[in-house]
């Protein structure tokens, strides 16, 4: 197989070759960024004064450490997000087989979603997503 034709074949069959364009894209994107940073480093003028080397913080003098403990609320939202994210993942295989699975598949998904809905209503009722307490 000639590699230029891989691009043409990609749409037809489901194989690793499908990922060839994505690979090219990735290499190109990473390469572009690396080149740009490198070239600007090489060609650009350098005036290293104390003020220039300071971390940019919108013109305000920076103070303290950036690593400060965040509120637990972010964490709660994040973990709930992960749970629903995983739920959504299960929809892809269902959506692809929507017709073939018929009513039994629909029932299975409905049950799964209703369990999640129960959980979601519970979360709302408990006020876990309320930002201001």
């Amino acid at each position, binding site marked *: 197989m000639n590699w230029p034709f891989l691009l043409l074949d990609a749409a037809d069959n489901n194989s690793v070759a499908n990922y060839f364009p994505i690979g090219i894209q990735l290499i190109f994107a990473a390469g572009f960024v690396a080149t740009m940073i490198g070239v600007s480093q090489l060609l650009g003028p350098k005036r290293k004064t104390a003020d220039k080397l300071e971390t940019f913080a919108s013109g305000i003098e920076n103070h303290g450490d950036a690593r400060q403990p965040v509120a637990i609320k972010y964490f709660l939202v994040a973990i709930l997000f992960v749970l629903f994210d995983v739920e959504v993942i299960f929809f892809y295989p269902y959506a692809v087989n929507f017709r073939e699975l018929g009513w039994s598949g629909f029932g299975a998904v409905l049950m799964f979603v209703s369990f999640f809905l*129960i959980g979601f209503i*519970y979360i709302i*009722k*408990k006020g876990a997503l309320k930002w201001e307490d």
Partner: protein
Amino acid sequence: MNAIIFSALAGVVMMYSGIITSKKTVIKYIAAIALVVLIAANLLQVYGIWQISVDTRDMLSFEKFGLVFNTLAFTATLIYVLLSGKEIENAGVNVAEYFALIFFVLCGVSILSSFNGLLMMFLGIEILTIPLYILTASDKRNLRSNEASLKYFLMGSFSTGIMLMGIALVYGATGSFALHTNAPVALSATGGIKASFLEVAGMILMFVSMAFKVSAAPFHFWTPDVYDGAPGVFTSFMATVVKAAGFIAFIRLFEGHTAILGPTWKILLAFVIVATLLIGNVTAVFQQSVKRMLSYSSIAQAGFMLFALYSSNDMAKEGLLLYSVAYSLATIGIFAVLIKLKDYAFDDFNGLGKTHPALAFATTVCLLSLAGIPLTGGFFAKYYMLASMVKEGGPLWLLIVAVLFAAVSVYYYFRVIQAMYFKEGTPSVQTEITSGFKAGMVLLAILIILLGIAPSLVLNLFYF
């Protein structure tokens, strides 16, 4: 299937009960009713009257053994809720959630008692343990509870990782998740067993992980810290129903597989049993806190339950059921009294025999049962375990070691009895002791004695 579905639904009901009502006592009674319904639903399936039949594609198989264990585990939970319900109410603010998590644990228990494939086993273990991590951390303001939960979570997820590795290797070797319980074992020309290396390694990894879950030495290090750090009520649940379920899963997993592992299996298991008995019993002797002593004693009792795995015949299965009941009831009883006291030291029991004779009597019966004194349930439990081992042709030295350590255990259980009857003092009771609680404890004691006189009460469930 009834047990799995109803326990999951009961968990959902409990989640919402906290939103509907804020009265903690009401929530407790809803939980008790849900447990009764759960037991009833399970019994309907045990006797084949009614069941929700689902095509599980042979991933779950509902045999009498697992279903009877479900009944016993749910009944033990009901007794636990009735005796220690007050403390669950006081454990924290999210009472309804605690009950919901307990029901999810029971869902895990009922999966573990009937899985027929590694996938379901993994799912069951996860459903069993994840609520436990949360229950351990339920005393949020207490640093020790947090520490215990984090330790439990990190070590528990690590051991789950080892189990997944084992499952992956077994899957790689056999190409399926099914437990080949009756598969013939191919013998090589030299008479050795020609099993796949991958499968053997996978089984050993799963053994390590399961030994961790039931806190068998040398994988027991988490147990004292977690049992000690968790709120007392939840330690009681973890050390009883959950541990017994772990053993059921253990024996289901290894029943038909021991031939693959060859003669080394018995040596490995004998080593683990002796180490567990040694560490559990000897360390328990030196403890100053009753709660910590009980957590070491739970390691020691795990050593005895491992005999069921060693012999893994029908008698061992009967014995395991009996052991689960006797051990769970006794431990639930002791914890129910222990968490009524202000502190967990031995001295807090001083003079309990004078001020609360009924409670002291019930506690004594529970302790005697744990020690395995005749006329209590614990005696026949230990007897069945050892007898099944002898029947299977186990070595004599193992029997002697087990009996020796049972004798050692008498020492630390009697320290509590001694404190109750022979030491002066006033026990510092934290929560009020109602007459209902006393009656419940005495009934529990009578139940344990009844088991000691007629163990067939439980064993008949297995056959009729």
